[in-house]
């Protein structure tokens, strides 16, 4: 693969700027980036690069930097690893060593190649005809619009039912209470007074009611007769007797002697 020109429209690559090497580590995106920059200084294809020479360059550079300023840890880690690689490359080969220094050097070379490839790809990508810089779109397109048309739905029934409710809600209210069969208190009093005169012994209140009363009428009659019995007892005209709560209520005519009292 041919070498592609470094052509960034971004922060200028430090590659061609030897003076940059004297400045700071901020120019590089990490130790691998610095290595790649140094490698480019060898002016050969990355495949032919001398790893040993590259290692020397890196170690020299880092030691110069350390004299002036603090060097970030990852650069030092790389330096330590490269120092090890250098000694391994220089020592007589030990066939049992795994991985071998040559293999480590090869891996480093492969990584540098890959990073270089991506850096060149980025440069070529950014150099393309870009929208807003080289090619232009319509500034004010009409746009395509999806318009939601609200369609209101109601039936004639809905309409009439609504009107019916309005009329009902606002009509003058006339309460038509349906007539219920009831025995009034007066009627019950009259009835009891009449029967008390006939019955002399204790008799259950229910026995005073006509047997043909049933349903709501009977309930009404019981209620009225009970109140009537209480009223007669208050007047001293009847005696009341009940064996316990909820037991039948008995009544009889009071003694005539007390009536006048």
């Amino acid at each position, binding site marked *: 693969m041919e070498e592609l020109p470094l052509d960034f429209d971004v922060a200028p690559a430090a590659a061609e700027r030897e003076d940059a090497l004297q400045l700071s580590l901020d120019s590089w995106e990490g130790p691998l980036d610095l290595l790649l920059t140094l490698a480019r200084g060898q002016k050969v294809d990355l495949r032919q690069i001398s790893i040993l020479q590259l290692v020397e360059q890196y170690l020299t550079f880092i030691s110069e930097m350390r004299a002036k300023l603090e060097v970030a840890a990852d650069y030092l880690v790389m330096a330590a690893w490269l120092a090890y690689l250098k000694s391994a490359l220089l020592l007589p080969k030990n066939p049992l060593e795994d991985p071998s220094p040559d293999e480590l050097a090869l891996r480093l070379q492969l990584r540098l190649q890959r990073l270089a490839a991506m850096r060149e790809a980025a440069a070529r990508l950014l150099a393309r005809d870009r929208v807003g810089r080289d090619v232009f779109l319509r*500034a004010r397109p009409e746009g395509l619009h999806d318009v939601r048309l609200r369609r209101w739905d109601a039936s004639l029934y809905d309409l009439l039912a609504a009107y019916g409710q309005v009329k009902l809600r606002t009509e003058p209210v006339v309460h038509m209470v349906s007539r219920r069969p009831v025995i009034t208190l007066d009627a019950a009093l009259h009835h009891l007074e009449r029967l008390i005169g006939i019955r002399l012994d204790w008799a259950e209140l229910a026995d005073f009611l006509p047997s043909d009363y049933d349903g709501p009428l009977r309930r009404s009659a019981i209620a009225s007769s009970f109140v009537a019995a209480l009223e007669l007892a208050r007047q001293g005209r009847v005696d009341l007797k009940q064996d316990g709560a909820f037991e039948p209520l008995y009544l009889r005519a009071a003694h005539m002697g007390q009536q006048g009292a």
Partner: protein
Amino acid sequence: MIDDRERAIEAMLFASDEPLDARQVAARFAEEVPVAEIKAIIQAIAARHAGSGIELVERGGHWHFQTPADLAHLLRRERDDPRKLSRAASEVLAIVAYHEPVSRAEIEAIRGVQTSKGTLDVLMEAEWIAPAGRREVPGRPLIYKTTDAFLQHFGLGSRKNLPGIEDLRAAGLLDPVDLAFEEAMGELDLVKDGEDA
């Protein structure tokens, strides 16, 4: 083959964020180009696009590209979004129909509750009611009436076909909810009596 100057002017008019006149176009060229020549080229570009889906049009000496008006329906896709009319809106519509022309205050008096402006807006958007002038009373309130679209939608030949109050009563539409409630309670009482017996 379109010449370079024509291509350039076409691209300028296309990419510009506002309509350009011949003078503005001329100013963009590094070299001197007579305004008359620019105008002629613009005319040529407009002619080239005539009858296509793109038009170059002049507005007060300024030119811009646009899409032809007859294709607007394709750029604006309309979708139905049916919605049920709310209870409140149904009531207001019915009141307008039975009492028209009627003002908002009158509607509120008949309904016995306040009526939001939005409710009338919905009915006007549906094109079922429309303003019908003003009532000549203090404040000159706007009055509303129903429309032909209203009659059409509800299948009424005319407002006279609206059922009368007696018709509504006969149809059970005037049965108060309260009465129905009492009837139900009455049935409940009978059941209790049965249990007592």
